[in-house]
């Protein structure tokens, strides 16, 4: 048959297939073969991300005696070029990447990673897919690409599936759709790429044949140690700018002010009562099972109504901490203190965000907001049409926030990375000079313990020293 005469490399649902090649040839061409023989289709298969390497070997050893049916991408001519010129550190990052066109650039939030990427897009001039953690960021990339290149990028995600040679998407959508999209983009950009190593998400990189890859992040390390995967699926770390060298140059100086609120007597009574329910239940269990723990409680809640009651009590406790009425009063005071200055409030829950929004009638940026409303809220804060906004985790990373110099974090348990990311954004250098970072926690509750844990981190330590 004809197909067995000429080796043929194809893209199939996020993988590469190599047909018409016998085992002998595979062994001869590759010392460490990425190929696995797939008897279901009668040819060799490997991950699409090996395309560049595999094609190079075939080209070198077989010259033009093979068919490359993978690439479905084309060069792009951008209608216009409207880019800011890069600072030295940004130029260094860009040229480090351009040498191999494959790897990770580490720069703190607020130091213009996006600019570096936009320059890379212009220079490489090919079909490109930008992958970001959340849809807000996806839309933000859409806007930035439009103003920098004049291209109305396609959108894949948020219920939209509009693929075009320049497109933006989210990690979740990318990992779902990459089997269909993997050969349409020659260039992939992973924004906040520390999100990529998740088991399912890494398919977004693995199932694409794109030879050119750029990862952007402020915090490449992951607690699970999986960040090493980035080397393989994006490329090595090419440029690192630490938060320390960035501080004071581009970011504003800042104070961290921590405010403890107390529960109202009614809240405290309820809080204690709920705590008692949990404690008594656990104490009772420990009479029989000395090492009865939270996990045991979770599994017992399936068949034991009092275990379930204890669990509900625990969650209600958390909810009281989160939504303590006193927090609203503190926010009122902070609003008075900073009248005329834009304020951003971050919340730990949607419910608290809506409480604040309803109390002060300020816009809240939650996941239900559509693109147009988000833009109105963000622009409104910048133009002074809105005095403040309240946001949940939606804004956790990388969103281009208007310049503010007052940020309030209300309760909400979160890890080091989230707090760092928040800091980065809030503390942009701005025309108001020194910035204020408030943290409101509920006194004598777990809320406070979580805040202490957060403060042990390096970035916070540094602030404390400077305050002294």
């Amino acid at each position, binding site marked *: 048959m004809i197909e067995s005469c000429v080796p043929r490399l194809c893209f199939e649902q996020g993988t590469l297939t190599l047909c018409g090649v016998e085992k002998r040839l595979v062994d001869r061409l590759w010392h460490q073969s990425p190929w*696995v023989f797939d008897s279901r289709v009668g040819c060799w298969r490997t991950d699409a991300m090996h395309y560049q390497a595999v094609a190079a070997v075939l080209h070198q050893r077989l010259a033009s005696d093979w068919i490359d049916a993978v690439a479905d991408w084309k060069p792009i001519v951008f209608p216009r070029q409207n880019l800011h010129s890069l600072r030295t550190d940004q130029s260094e990052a860009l040229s480090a990447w351009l040498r191999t066109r494959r790897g990770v650039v580490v720069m703190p939030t607020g130091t213009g990673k996006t600019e570096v990427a936009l320059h890379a897009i212009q220079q490489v001039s090919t079909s490109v897919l930008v992958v970001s953690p959340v849809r807000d960021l996806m839309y933000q990339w859409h806007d930035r690409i439009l103003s920098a290149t004049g291209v109305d990028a396609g959108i894949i995600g948020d219920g939209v599936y509009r693929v075009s040679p320049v497109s933006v998407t989210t990690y979740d959508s990318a990992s779902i759709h990459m089997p269909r999209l993997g050969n349409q983009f020659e260039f992939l950009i992973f924004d906040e790429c520390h999100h990529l190593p998740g088991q399912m998400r890494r398919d977004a990189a693995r199932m694409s044949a794109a030879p050119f890859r750029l990862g952007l992040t402020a915090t490449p390390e992951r607690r699970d140690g999986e960040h090493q995967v980035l080397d393989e699926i994006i490329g090595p770390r090419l440029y690192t700018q630490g938060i320390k060298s960035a501080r004071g140059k581009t970011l504003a100086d800042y104070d961290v002010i921590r405010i403890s609120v107390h529960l109202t007597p009614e809240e405290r009574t309820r809080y204690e009562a709920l705590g008692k329910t949990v404690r008594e239940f656990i104490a009772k269990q420990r009479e029989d099972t000395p090492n009865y723990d939270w996990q045991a409680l979770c599994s017992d809640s399936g068949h034991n109504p009092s275990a379930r009651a204890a669990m509900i009590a625990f969650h209600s406790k958390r909810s009281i901490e989160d939504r303590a009425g006193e927090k609203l009063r503190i926010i009122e005071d902070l609003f008075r203190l900073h009248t005329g200055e834009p304020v951003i409030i971050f919340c730990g829950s949607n419910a608290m965000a809506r409480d604040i929004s309803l109390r002060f009638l300020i*816009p809240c940026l939650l996941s239900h907001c559509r693109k147009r409303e988000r833009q109105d809220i963000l622009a409104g804060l910048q133009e002074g049409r809105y005095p403040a906004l309240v946001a949940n985790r939606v804004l956790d990373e990388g969103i281009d926030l208007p310049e503010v110099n007052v940020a309030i974090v209300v309760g909400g348990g979160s890890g080091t990375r989230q707090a760092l990311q928040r800091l980065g954004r809030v503390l942009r250098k701005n025309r108001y000079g020194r910035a204020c970072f408030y943290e409101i926690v509920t006194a004598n509750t777990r809320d406070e313990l979580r805040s202490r844990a957060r403060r042990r981190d390096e970035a916070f330590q540094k602030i404390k020293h400077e305050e002294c």
Partner: protein
Amino acid sequence: MLTKEQSIAEFDFQRQIVIPDRLVRRTHGHYLAVVEDLLRIYQDHVGEVRKNLHDRVRRRLQDVLDCPTRRIAAFCKLLDDSSEFENTQSADAARLRKRVFSQAAKSHPLVQTSDQLFDRDEAKIKAEIAHDLGMTWTMIEASLFADVIEFHRLRQAPQDLDATKLLARYNVAQTQAALYPALSMTVWASDDFKIVLRYAKLARLMHSISRNGEEYVFQFNGPASVLRQTRRYGVSFAKFLPGLLSARHWRMHATVLGPAKRRFALRLTSRDGLQSEIHSQDFDSSLEEAFFKDWQQLQTNNESNGWNIAREGTVLFRHQTVFMPDFLLSHPQHGEVLLEIVGFWTPEYLREKANRLRQFRDSARIVLAISETANQELHELDFLKVTFKTHLRAKQILALLRSEL
């Protein structure tokens, strides 16, 4: 389908099996009355917001001894899925928000304790805004976030759904959810191969096929499964399940990645009583159905010369292409002959059919029964064949078999 957070499955480390949550009359008879109450909650509270409906469901299930939180959440999801909610145009709520927040911006910050500097009292400003909009503040508060999913209002309670059916749905949904972390699936089938393969294909699964006597063994997974163990096709297995449940005579074994990255087996057979709401059509067309009945008639009258008929009894396959001729004719001396009926189809379909026939030309003895119009289109097909105008008679085929074998 349920989310991961609503799924319940027991991982038995001893036997290395996973048992999806299942409510059956023998052990969970009391759920019938409970679920009837849940349906009534939805029927009695059309117009209420989703959050309140869920609260009511939760309260009803709170004191049921053996009802974990996840089961409650799963019931909410299944009830929601079979109901209709008012989808307040997010534009409407967004417009209202914009008006309210813009108007309030002038009076920022709204304070509860006014002083000389700040006298914009919260209650007063809210009353003013309500007055300007011609609504009460309570109305504004109720519609300000009406586009948030939890605040969607129930428009129509589940229709044609009784407690038994909802429990059946629950059981299927839990088994589907248990398949999300599945790595691969093997199905042993002795009937309805076409149904099994069709739904597997619809779920975008890849197959390996082998024959074991009367039984076929189908192994399903996805393209990347040969490269590494991956849960990426778990959702495909879950989507495939209702189709599989609509077939007869099979058993299934799925390998599921469980806690501590250990592998567990999920086993199921067509006799386990999980009910599909898919009802696969018995025949592709009435033409085939009429022919089958005609032949059976001859067979009962002992006029079929020793030939027996079976529907879709053979699977021909080469890699990912499969071909299941409509009928398998078998004879004690003459062996097996496959019969494919080519009826009235579009030219594209006919060309595709011709390709497939050519591909499997040498894999078996194939006889074609082809309509005259289709025969004009595919006259170059080199097969033993009979043509027919509108109806195919069993005797035509028997005559062909007699003269050619």
